[in-house]
């Protein structure tokens, strides 16, 4: 809980802390929160300017950094921008991969057709449809999902 007289940035800081501190054992979470509150009450007067409050909060460190330290884990890295080395693959290249997979499914289906035809000597048009239908349905389904997810973005 924050004090009614806390600066609004301090309140916001503790909202962030509470959102992220669920990973901590309750007793350690309570003690850590008390210490951080005491620190910020000393560092940020209720009538402090926004700049003063931001400066004190920056010096204290973000809730995620402090919680990572409490867990004895390395400081969480900033998310890498899409396309950066080690970052998320760019969306366009993900689309290319999906298209590649669809084409691969179709090629495998077509390649298997002669084998299937040779295994069934008296093949009819119905047999052919039954053989080709599953891979075609899968390919169409994947394309549909890709198209929908792109429209949502």
């Amino acid at each position, binding site marked *: 809980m924050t004090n009614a007289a806390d600066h609004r940035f301090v309140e916001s800081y503790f909202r962030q802390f509470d959102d992220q501190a669920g990973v901590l054992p309750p007793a*350690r979470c309570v*003690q*850590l929160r*008390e*210490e*951080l509150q*005491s*620190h910020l*009450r*000393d560092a940020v007067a209720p009538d402090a300017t926004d700049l003063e409050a931001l400066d004190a909060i920056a*010096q*204290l*460190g*973000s809730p995620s*950094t*402090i919680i990572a*330290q*409490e867990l*004895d884990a390395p*400081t969480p890295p900033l998310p890498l921008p899409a396309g950066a080395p080690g970052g998320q693959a760019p969306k366009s290249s993900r689309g290319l991969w999906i298209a590649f997979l669809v084409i691969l499914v179709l090629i495998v289906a077509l390649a298997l057709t002669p084998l299937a035809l040779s295994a069934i000597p008296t093949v009819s048009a119905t047999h052919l449809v039954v053989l080709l239908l599953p891979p075609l349905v899968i390919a169409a389904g994947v394309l549909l999902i890709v198209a929908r997810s792109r429209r949502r973005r």
Partner: protein
Amino acid sequence: MVDGATSTQLRRGVVGPCILALLSSGPRYGLQLVKELDEIGGLLSSLGTVYPLLNRLQESGFVSSRWEITDDERPRRYYELTEAGSIELRSFTDDWRTFSSTVSGLLGSIPNITTESEMK
């Protein structure tokens, strides 16, 4: 302040014993410790990282804490060195003397090392 993974690891290793060293001269509350460590300089990447360390030192039995009302009538948690903490501090002090003299000797024997502060 020095950035980088190596200095971060170094700080993580030494700030705890530095807290014990400060507490060896008497009990202090959290913010007092943070301010004193900050004034020494170069030890803290951010002030808030002291509090998880205090929690850990308490869990290890090296410090104990109690609430006290200070002159400004604000309750504060005071930390105090325990007997186990004193033993740990003595042990670290011995280790550090050997360690730092070994590393300093090694670094001193390498010619033409320009430190970051000399470059500025």
